[in-house]
């Protein structure tokens, strides 16, 4: 019996490692999340279009032992042409700024879901404004190279963190883009052990009504309950919470330009694991170009990070079944 347990455990570990390995792509959104694009609207846009604050903050985590230059690649950073949400004539300017160093992440404001206070803390390493520019339409723009040591060393993450703030400076168009954390300036080469996370996920849902998207917030050991917030869901299907202890708990859904908050308790088994928030599109009527804002906070009101590569792997619901041995007599 014990030998069987060991075999099962080994298979699990092997499977987990294999899964982790296949999840080492550091694109945002990750392929596994099945989210087409991130989105940031110009400052003059309406929040009802799916971006509550026209500002997104992403953190790029570089393992401590990585010393080679890193690059933050942005796919289609300009606003215009393909992969963007046009509102009238393209008139939007979006700024991408890279921060590192002192208080880049550790400043509390940087970990907030709203761009208030010192959310742009840290050392500005690079800053580029993008408008309509065919050169970067449907093409990659590379920030870098960056010395990993220019990031802020965070012991609890085991690496150095860079911050990329995407700000819709002006205009009202939606800028759709993707990130990739790369070791190469010309192609996407993963940083081994790297990761990307954000505290507020603003993204474009798939236009395919059969698609299911998912993101992976991480519940640390002090989390007792979480509050999942969704904005501007537009009645586009269901939002479910999965975890090792939750099997598809449904969230209340927001409508146009509306915030909805759902609270869920976190069991001991769920601590230090990733949760899975699934977005299941409505299959009756296709809602096209739906942009959603998702965030999750713990009982203290602290935002929990969404990792592109879920910490500990994708949570798999494991029902808690109590086994009781019957018909066995104790040997005296």
């Amino acid at each position, binding site marked *: 019996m014990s030998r069987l347990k060991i075999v099962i455990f080994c298979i699990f570990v092997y499977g987990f490692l294999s899964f982790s390995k296949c999840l080492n792509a550091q694109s945002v959104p990750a392929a596994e999340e099945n989210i087409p694009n991130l989105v940031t609207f110009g400052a003059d846009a309406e929040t009802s279009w799916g971006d509550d604050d026209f500002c997104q903050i992403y953190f790029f985590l570089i393992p401590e032992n990585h010393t080679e*230059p890193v690059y933050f690649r942005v796919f289609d950073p300009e606003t215009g042409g393909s992969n963007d949400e046009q509102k009238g004539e393209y008139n939007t300017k979006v700024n991408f700024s890279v921060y*590192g*160093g*002192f208080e880049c992440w550790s400043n509390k404001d940087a970990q907030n879901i709203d761009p208030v206070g010192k959310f742009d803390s840290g*050392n*500005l390493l690079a*800053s580029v404004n993008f408008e309509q520019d065919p050169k970067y339409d449907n093409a990659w723009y590379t920030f870098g190279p960056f*010395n990993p040591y220019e990031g802020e060393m965070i012991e609890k993450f085991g690496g150095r963190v860079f911050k990329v703030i995407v700000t819709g400076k002006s205009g009202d168009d939606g800028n759709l883009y993707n990130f990739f954390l790369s070791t190469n300036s010309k192609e996407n080469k993963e940083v081994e052990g790297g990761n990307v996370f954000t505290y507020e996920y603003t993204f474009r849902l798939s236009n395919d009504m059969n698609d299911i998207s998912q993101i992976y917030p991480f519940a640390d050991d002090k989390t007792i309950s979480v509050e999942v917030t969704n904005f501007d869901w537009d009645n586009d299907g269901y939002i479910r919470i999965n975890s090792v202890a939750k099997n598809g708990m449904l969230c209340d859904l927001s409508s146009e330009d509306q915030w909805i908050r759902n609270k869920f308790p976190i069991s001991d088994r769920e601590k230090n694991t990733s949760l899975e928030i699934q977005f299941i599109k409505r299959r009756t009527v296709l809602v096209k170009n739906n942009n959603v804002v998702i965030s999750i906070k713990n009982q203290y009101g602290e935002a929990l990070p969404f990792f592109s590569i879920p910490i500990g792997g994708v949570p798999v619901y494991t029902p808690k079944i109590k086994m009781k041995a019957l018909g066995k007599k104790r040997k005296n």
Partner: protein
Amino acid sequence: MKQNKILIKLIVLFFLVNPVFVFSQENEFINFNVDDGLAQAYVYNITQDAKGNLWIGTGNGLSKYDGYTFQNFTEQDSLGGNFITCALKTDKGLWFGHLNGRVSFYDGISFNYYINETSSIVDIEQDFEANIWIASQNKGFIKFKNKTEKGELYQNSFQNHVFTFKFIDENSLLVGTSEGLKLCQLTKNNEIAEKNDISEIPNGKVVDIIRSEKSDRFYILTENDGLFQITIDSDNYKVDEIADNNDFSRAQNLFEDKEGNLWLASLGNGVFKLKFSNNRELAEVKRYGENNGLLTNAVKSVFEDQEGNIWIGKYGGGISRLIPSANSFINFDEEKYSNSIHSICITEKAKWIGTGQELLKVDLKSNKVLHSYDVNGSLENDKITAIADWNNTELWIGTEKSGVYRLNYKTGNIKSQFLRLGNLEKSINSIIAENQNVWIATQKGLCKYNLETNKKKWFTMQEEGLPHNSVNHIIKDHEKRIWVGTLSNTLSYIQDDELTNINLANRNSLLNITSIAEDKDGLIWVGTQGNGVYVINKDSIMNINYQNGLLSDYCYSLNSDKERMWVTHRGGVSQIRLSDYHIKTLQKNAGLHSSIEFNKNSTAKEKDKILYFGSNQGIYTYDISKELNRAVPPTLDISSLRINGDEYHINKNLVLPPGYYKIQIGYKGINLNEPKLIKYQYVLKGYENDWSAPDNKRSVDYKQLGSGDYEFILKAVNGNGIESIQPLSFKIKIKYPLWQKTWFQLLSLAGLIFGVYLIVILREKNLRRIQRKLIQNLDDKTREVIAKEEVIKERKRTEKELIQAKEKAEESDRLKTAFLSNMSHEIRTPLNAIVGFSTMLQEPNVNPNSKGRYMSILKSNTNDLLCLIDDIMDISSIEAGQLKIKIQDCNLHEILTELYTVHAKKISELKTEDLALNYIEKHTDLIIQSDPLRVKQILSNLIGNAIKFTENGSIDFGIVYHKDGMVKFFVKDTGIGILENQKEVIFERFRKEFRDGWKKLYRGAGLGLAISKSMVELLGGEIGVESVAGEGSYFYFTLPVILNPENG
């Protein structure tokens, strides 16, 4: 303005594209990375301290490079942070800014840091009052008046991130921000207030601002918008664009070198060198990148050191040093041509290069291969070993195995030239061409080919007495002599077909002369295989070899410029300075790879400007006109100090406790370009007198260094022969043990003396104390002795007194007895007579005749008794001192006469007829002052005694003399005399002589002479007696003529 911009762009574009036409020049950089000891591959800034050390700020520590090694500093060394964002050199030290907001200061010994931690430090500058200003990216500026003071915060009036700044004057500064350049001024309320937003510069990130040392302008470098210059005159300014964004991809850093060129670092395109014309317009742009050996195009910083070296700080690639442009390589496309160059010939129209495969005609300027000649159809396993131009008409080509070929310039045809049968004659080593002759050096002798007559004259061992048939090299000197180097120890020259041999070494040593050259002074230099270089002077031959500093004793070619002789070896080149034979070696410092192998006599010179040396890696060229004047002397420093194996902090003066030490001193001459060429000399004064021989060693050991004062002095000469300005010195003091110190010895001596003195004093004091004690004891003893003596004396005295008392008592008793005896006799006798005769008188029948006789007897006895009583009374008076003397004139004659009368009567009464009394009259008129009664009494006693003891004879008396105030009396008798032993006794009281055998009883109380003596003495005279028993006596006494009453 627009035209200018277009022109600038064209210039930049031209020079950026230009490398396409330029021959590939590899290894223009020497690279240093983490493997070499650099702290991190990401270099953010480079600066240099006063000693010459290069300081490299990286993302993970600060590296110090002294030309030899990298020494890294981190937070563990009190650095404010491991990430160095910026640096500034000041007179007092180095400042470093950190990503964590801290600022470090290095004073030459240690680091101190100042905690700010507001925002990343982006720039540090010094204002016109030498205050240090530190810019953080988004928290304003901090001003340090001095390094000990806490900084003063200045807030920005604008919101943009700051990246760089530069002071214009005391109160104004240019600030480069994330959104353009701002002209700011300092306000009284500690604010950096924006005065002008310089809109002429695009609203992008400004990454660097520098003030030109050559002109009154500032250069503004933006990250993505190009390079600008701005001139500011009070409130007016003028902005000009130098180059736009398309030229430099992600520019990062700008530096102006000593010649006024700008060096621009970019993250995308490497480094750009921007040369300006005299009117400060951009004239030339040269780009250095991966193609030039930079390894990466991501460059973060650029810096020129004091020696003129350009250092490139790369982003992820460490640092690189640009090899001085004088050194370069000509390489050919390896796929087409061989890069092993065996012969070079420079003509007026082209360079001719002989390789292992072909003959190349190369463009003089561009080094582009113009034509490749296949000399003999196939040069497989053959080489072109010699090329010579003949009168711009033909090119003579020598091969290793197939003889000589002639290339006609006009036709381009190559034909073989027969010399002589034999394979060795086809092995060509060297060719020189004259007007009429071509000299061909072969393995089997030297051939002189006359082009007019086509005659050949051979110089071999057999034909002309050549030292050896294998002729390695020939040259023609300024005297038109053909110098011939063979495989022998003899150098030969031919003049007018006459061969002359010069022995370079004795016969026992075999030389292999490989190369010959003539220097500007006409001296012949000879390169050998294994014996270095010989210099043939008029009257001497000098050998220069490895021990003298030559890179190797194996020489492959010689060539010279105006100042140096160049010698090639495997692995490098030696430069020998003609003036003083100082040798400098070129290896990695000149960009030469250690695997380089120069080929024999593959060298040429172009217009005395460029030297060419053929090697297995192409042609190494040295352009003398591009040579940097590196007149920077090496800065000396102590790199380590080990004492008994333990590392010691380097101090100016080292003081050690007494003992013996093994001291190892490590030192270095800081020279970032050619540190290994520095030669050191040192001396430890106090230990040795002579300087050490020049050497490359960088440490010295002193074993068993004992107590003393030493001074270590170090001097050095760099590769170019420039000596350090000031020798480095520091003092070592090994303290003397206490007992060896002069002061201690003096003190000890003084102490010893004092001790001895103290001992003496104490001893003396002790002795004195003992002496005092002894004296006291002695005194006590003396007193005791004296006391005892006194007692003894007292006892003796008492005893004596007792004896005397006893004697006196006995005397008294005897006297009493004598007295009683005498008295009883002397008294009883007269009394008996008196009683008897008186009784008889009472008888009735007394005869009347008898009665008268009886009465006379009574009377006589009564008188005797009376006289006795008088004597007793006199002696009593004398003893009691009651005897009165009555001084008056005494007529001695009268007295003597009276006495004669009286005593004559007595004698007569005695009826003694045989006795005569004579008065000897003399000085009868003499009258003296005395008591006449006593004089008379004395004389009467003497005369009475004489009568008593003289039965017959005579008794004479009288005066003996009168002189000197004294009168001497005498009484002389012829009586019984006095025994000798009785002469003294008779003058004592109650003493009288008693002599056995006496039949007659002599009456007398024994008082007469005693009374006489006392009276004579009372009258101031003396009495004496001279007597012979049985013959008589002579009594005499003296008296003064005039008696002083006080004497009486």
